[in-house]
């Protein structure tokens, strides 16, 4: 019996090995090298200790970019999670047009970034559609991409792109909740709100963890649209960490990129760890 179990375990390891080797070769080892580089000079690989970390923390551009990225994450993730949950619950209760609406919300996921950028330009240019509408209504032109409004354009773009994706994940989670629980609750006199707060939400905690992590990781992809629209130096409110890494790479500041990347990874790991801890504690 033990021999059989060991043999089965060996088969499992054999199947996992190729992927594990891939992760080691293409993710873990390079990251280990990044960590080492974060303690070395940019080009000469001379050991500099924590000088790079000091330089990163003291760099005004890094502080601005990190602040913008945190602000973006803090605003977008809760909004996205909440909105997509509301949408998922609404769609779940719909009888007609459910599939059509599901597909409609998923379309933005498939739209390439370059196409999104074209739409941005048509809508948010100083002589674009939205300003045209504003002028017609008697207002003044809004410099969407050259003022603080650029940040909210980014937020809206992120929400628009990822709403459908998160909604589908929520719907998968909702589908996993046994309907008998709802029936039993209704028999006991529970209303919709009570069902939602006492049955739906607790059963969706696993999905919440997954969706939060995925949304957080997707938030870094919004850089593509921001860069395509506004280039290397967008309005300050849109200046994210990836802009900084991009520009540092152009300026050969590999040491600072490595240090900042390590800090970035630590923050992300910490957040995910906290989330997991909260989820485990609930369980």
């Amino acid at each position, binding site marked *: 019996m033990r021999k059989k179990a060991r043999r089965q375990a060996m088969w499992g390891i054999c*199947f996992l*090995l*190729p992927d594990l080797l891939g992760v080691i070769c293409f993710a873990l080892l390079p990251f280990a090298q990044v960590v080492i580089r974060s303690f070395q*000079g940019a*080009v000469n690989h001379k050991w500099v200790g924590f000088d790079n970390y000091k330089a990163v923390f003291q*760099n005004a551009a890094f502080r601005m970019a990190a602040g913008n990225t945190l602000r973006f994450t803090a605003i977008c993730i809760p909004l996205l999670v909440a909105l997509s949950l509301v949408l998922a619950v609404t769609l779940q209760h719909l009888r007609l047009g459910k599939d059509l609406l599901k597909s409609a919300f998923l379309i933005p996921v498939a739209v390439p970034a370059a196409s999104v950028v074209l739409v941005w330009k048509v809508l948010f240019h100083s002589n674009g559609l939205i300003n045209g509408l504003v002028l017609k209504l008697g207002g003044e032109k809004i410099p969407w991409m050259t003022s603080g409004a650029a940040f909210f354009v980014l937020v809206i773009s992120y929400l628009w792109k990822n709403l459908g994706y998160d909604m589908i994940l929520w719907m998968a989670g909702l589908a996993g909740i046994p309907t008998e629980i709802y029936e039993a609750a209704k028999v006991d006199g529970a209303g919709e709100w009570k069902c939602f707060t006492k049955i739906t939400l607790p059963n969706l905690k696993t999905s919440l963890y997954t969706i939060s992590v995925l949304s957080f990781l997707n938030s870094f992809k919004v850089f593509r649209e921001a860069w395509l629209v506004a280039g290397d130096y967008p309005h*300050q409110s849109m200046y994210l960490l990836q802009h900084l890494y*991009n*520009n540092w790479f*152009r300026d050969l500041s590999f040491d600072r990129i490595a240090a900042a990347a390590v800090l970035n990874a630590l923050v992300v790991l910490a957040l995910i760890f906290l989330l997991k801890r909260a989820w485990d504690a609930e369980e």
Partner: protein
Amino acid sequence: MRRHHFLKRVLTASLAAGLCCGAIPAIANEADDGAAAMGRYLETEVELPQSEAGWSIRGVARTDQGTLRMLAENMDDDGMYGSISILDSSDGGENWNLTAKFPEEDREIYFDKMALRPDGSGVAAGMVFSEENGGLEIGDQDTYTSSSAEGVMVNSNFGVEYCCVFFDADGNTMHRFPLKEGVSQLCFTEDGEVLARTYGGGIYSIDQETGEMTEKFMGSGAWQIAVCQDRLLVLTSSEVRWYDISTQEPLGRDESMENVLFATGKNYDDTSSEGQSIVFTQDEEGRLYFCTNGGIYSHSLDGSVVEQVVDGTMTSLSDPELSLLEMAVVEGSFYVTYQNETDGKLLKYTYDPNIASTPQKEITVYSLKEDKGLRQAIVTYQKLHPDTYVNYEVGLTGADGVTVSDALRTLNTDILAGNGPDVLVLDGMSVSTYAGKGLLQDLSPVLDEVRENDGLLDNIAETWKNEDGIMAVPIRFGLTLASGKAEVLNRLENIASLVELSKEEGALDYEEILQLPEILYYLCSNEWKNEDGTINQEKLEDYVQAVKQITDNFMENASDQTLKMLEDFKEEGITDSYSGELDGMNMEFLLGKSKMNFGVLLDSMNYCGLIAANKKMGESTVKLFGDDHTGVYLPICTVGILDTVREPEEAREFVKYLLSKEGELAANYSGFPVNRAALDKKLAHMDVGDDAGMEVAGEFTGYYMDTGESVSLSYTWPEEEEQEWLKNAAESLTAFADTEQIPRQVVLEETRRCVNGEISTQEAVNSIMQKLNLYLAESGS
């Protein structure tokens, strides 16, 4: 059941093994026995028959006796044009026999296009300039007219008549016919029919009995044609097409040739009397060969492979000034005749199986944008060092939408991976970034050697000197000058005074206005930086305001015609590519419509033009342009050697050559040499044999098609005091223009938006400040 279970295990194990194999990089099994591939074509110059003034080659072809026949104009002959001689060589160009000469009466014709049949007979096409209507005076107001009588087109402003001459194998001219249109290319079919491509891109057949031109294949759009066996190749703006000659039916496109010819976005619509950018020929077996700057290629009809036979980067073919004339192949050797700025030559390419196919030493040179002067220097360097291959890489070819940032990131990726170039041309890059990261070697020993031999303009050569040495050196430079009426120039002290002058009608002209952001950027860019590395907003605001005000002032006084022209330029996007270069032969100034022009002077020809224009207009002068009468210099082709260089000796040798007199003189493109001896020679042009100031350096003719206004100007080489003035001016310069592309792009983009009225001055300044502050903050700590 057990068997089924076993098969399942075997299948899954095989799949897993396959996945593993796919994830493991294949180990290349190189049969490296240390032996290099041997054999390549070597270039030699064919010595032409003795002639003091030289030969101007018009054509070369193989005859059916296997001899090489050449048609060339002997420049020794008196008169406007030399006689066309037919020379034959049966030993591959070692010796030449003069077979025949065109008769005297044909010497009035400027023959620029020729074609030969295999038997040695042929046709030559050219033009006659009518003395009655030739030449123009400044301010001539005659409008362009044309009249057509008996198929002869006469340009009443330029008096040109086109004609062709047929000659037999012995060189006797048989018929001379007028042509209704100018011909830019001629070729013979296998049946002896003459096909001509006109300047308008149409393909015609020329009747050999009457000279009548009949349209065939197409009326326009052909950029090049070539005959191969029974087919006609037509090169258009984006296609290579084949036609059946006898039926004129299209046979389809040749995609393999298209992939080669259009890969870099090159266009071939540049035919002139001095040559073209591609030539064709076929060998005895009907295999097609063509020659471009990239080299010589071979292609068989109906084949899908184009093979590079001669790598142009290792020969003179890569010289950007080269204009190809004709090509022939005789007994496996290629003969290519070309014309450049100074003379024509016949090059021979012969296969040598005993030489390595690529030189054993290689150095890589990288620049963001193509530097034609550098390419010329590479061509001559390789001739002197055949054991070294100089691989010139360009980051922004223009063909693939790569931005400056993208190109720099790609470069840095290569440097990080250990595959970076050996010599880096830092134009458009931050020299301080590369030097500050310890990536560049100290070039002081190289400069010391050159200084000892020829002398250097140290104020420019040591632009990037710091406590660690000289990490980068500009090979060439430009300087900001203003030229024009003395009473205007005397009031030009700084940019504020330029703003005042712009209020006067006729003070400036549209060329300066179009380039104003660039020109003033050169003057002001280094003044915006405070000592602590921040941007001085006040000075930046002064710059943007000055550009806006000067432009607005000019527009207020400009005529409707000028306003329309500027609008047209804007729509065509021409304003996006200005460099701020000073045009020495400024038509507006020569027509008396403006009183001065200014910008960056980049070559001696423009300096000659400035001087000649000032003399022509009278009471005019030239001075350094900048604040307090001091100008700035623009470092051009700033080179550095990377610390990761693989062939350090060769790289240093190459940089030394670039700085040497020979290397500087090999580059005929923008910028004055930093090498003193080369600068002296460029200005004096002493090798022509006449005293400076006496020899005609060139002629300029310009006209406006809309109004018919035209101007012509002859200019001579500068006299000694004019040469000294320029040299002293260059030596006095201490401030240099910032050439880094990233901040430059930011500033110019927002300034142009302000000039175009899209945003206000304050908005432009705020936007620039925000972006530049971010840029500076990134590099700060």
